[in-house]
């Protein structure tokens, strides 16, 4: 079993990990020849939220080499915080690089931890003392121009191919409505205000570009509505244009809703750091699926898929 790669796009990888680290402590990563899958599917997650994401290898890595007995796939479990730490070391802060002419002592202490400019980050699968781990080797230039090498070893647990095969995305019926979400930053501000009011949140959308978020408790009813959202067409819809499983007439004004836990929605909204476009798909009363695109949608560099199951509202 061998694996090594150069991480070219550290900032994006870092932002993805920032989102996932807040979600779950142990993360499953599956490396294949073409894709890196990040999976958070613990039952103890807040509100039952799960993340299944696929990132195309070329958008993050270069000089990628993988080899294993299991169809050249490697599945491992590691601590998300540890991985985040390694990536933080690897993120260089360009502002830390400006030479301050007044500051003769370019020690950089007190300014910024990342006072190195990263030149190269290599990740390798290694084994030390019978313990498998991912070794990150970060090479950079310090302010004074000296080469600096930082190494991070992140302990991992390699999953047997049998266990890896058992991992499967949750089954969902075909979504009732797809809608492009407004900027997640804005959404996050609003949902944060709603959090002290209630534990659950209703999300409603229709095929005419209306999106609503509502909270309904004894003390207060709040509903926020966006009009003019885009309803992206998916390939499935085009196939099903003639025959529909559900209703014969698809009323574009009909609002489809799902009730979810506010905390899990907030965990999803943590991905505002990485998302450029986010599409929400509502399976009425069943679940909410959110596709967070990393980078351009057209490039499809990567997608983080969030599954949030509906809460049964008594």
């Amino acid at each position, binding site marked *: 079993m061998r694996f090594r790669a150069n991480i070219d796009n550290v900032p994006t990888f870092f932002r993805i990990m920032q989102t996932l680290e807040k979600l779950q402590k142990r993360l499953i990563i599956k490396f294949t020849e073409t894709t890196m899958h990040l999976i958070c599917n613990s039952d103890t997650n807040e509100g039952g939220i799960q993340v299944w994401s696929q990132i195309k290898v070329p958008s993050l890595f270069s000089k990628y080499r993988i080899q294993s007995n299991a169809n050249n796939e490697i599945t491992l479990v590691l601590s998300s915080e540890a991985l985040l730490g390694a990536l933080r070391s690897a993120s260089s802060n360009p502002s830390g690089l400006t030479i301050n002419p007044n500051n003769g002592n370019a020690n950089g202490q007190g300014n910024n931890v990342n006072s190195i400019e990263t030149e190269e980050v290599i990740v390798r699968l290694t084994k030390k003392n019978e313990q498998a781990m991912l070794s990150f080797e970060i090479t950079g230039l310090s302010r004074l121009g000296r080469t600096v090498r930082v190494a991070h070893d992140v302990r991992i647990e390699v999953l047997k191919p049998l266990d890896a095969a058992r991992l499967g995305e949750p089954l969902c019926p075909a979504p009732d409505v797809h809608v492009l979400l407004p900027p997640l930053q804005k959404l996050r501000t*609003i949902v944060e205000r709603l959090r002290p009011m209630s534990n659950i949140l209703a999300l409603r959308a229709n095929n005419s570009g209306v999106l609503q978020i509502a909270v309904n408790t004894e003390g207060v009813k709040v509903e926020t509505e966006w009009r003019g959202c885009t309803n992206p067409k998916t390939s499935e819809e085009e196939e099903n244009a003639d025959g529909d499983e559900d209703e014969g007439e698809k009323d574009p004004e009909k609002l489809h809703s799902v009730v979810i836990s506010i905390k899990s929605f907030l965990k999803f909204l943590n991905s505002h750091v990485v998302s450029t476009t986010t599409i929400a798909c509502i399976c009425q009363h069943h679940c909410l699926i959110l596709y967070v695109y990393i980078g351009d949608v057209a490039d499809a560099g990567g997608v983080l898929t969030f599954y949030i199951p509906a809460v049964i509202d008594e």
Partner: protein
Amino acid sequence: MSQDERIPAVLTASVADVRYLASLLRGVHFSNMASVTLSRSGLTITVEEARTLVGYAFIFAQVFDEFELHASKPNNPKPNRPRRATNGDAVSDSGSTEPESDEEEPDAPTVEAAFQINLNILIDCLNIFGTAGPLPAPSTAANNFKRWKRDGEGDDDGVHGEDGRANGGRGRIDAYLAGGDGKRTSMRMSYEGDGYPLTLLIAEDANGPTTTCEITTYQVEPHIDLEFDSETVVLRIIFKSSWLRDALSELDPSCEKLTFIANPSVDGPQRPRLNTQPMLRIQADGTHGSTEMDFPNDKEVLETFDCTQRVSFSYRFSHIVRTLRALSSSTKTSLRIDESGLLSLQFLMPKPQSTGADGSDGFVEFRCLALDE
């Protein structure tokens, strides 16, 4: 009018920028439940703590761009008959509102409706888009001084027409539109009457999202009535809020008791001589020790100082600290103590772009009972 016709809501009000309103509400946000009293002159938010401290936020109708108040749903069939001042039972079922009789005109009652509401939720809703943050502390430069009436509540009744619409409300929109940093959140509120929720419609801009909130209202619980006896005022001071704010923030949080000591000025205020007795002293006592802060007999600091006899009253420090939020956003403070020791602190909260001294700046008042010593 037929019976089936829709009775207009008791209150309809709107404002283009909620920040000022939110800052007034924050000034009294030291407890979750607040009672809101609606009258023709505006809204009054009352919050109470420990039967000792009461905070009032007076939001005059002119703060709003639109303010319409109708008589609340009566029990008798004629909805728009003008109410009589003493007709307390027709105001609402709960019977909890009694029209205040100090300054109303004989035909129009002052208190139209009252309800209790969760202030946390109200402030969160106003701030839902994150733009109703605290206003920057107003500058204390002399040219920002707005003349204000000490007993401001009573003076506004005369200018209102019979339907309570605030005069000049429309003109003030320009003041809000002119200059501004970032998005403005505008809000429209309405209240149908007793038992109905307070409805807020909040929008950021025309294209953005709109939020509708319905906040449950509850029956008013009677507040302790701390009547300030204007006849027996023993101390009256007006000074810049920044002095009091600086003084209070210097104090160690472990203080338990705050005492205001004042001595009548020996000479006239024109020629202050070196006095052995301070004009105003704030003394703070706690487990760790005590602090004394003396204010000089200087017009620059104490703009108005009336003291008839030596005054010394103590108050629980934790109550006085509750006033800090309102104090930080205000420009001027009036401190009055009557002979029973009841302290009345009034903070003037100037509107961000107030066109002038029209007496419509909101203010927040705190009344606190003295500790029995």
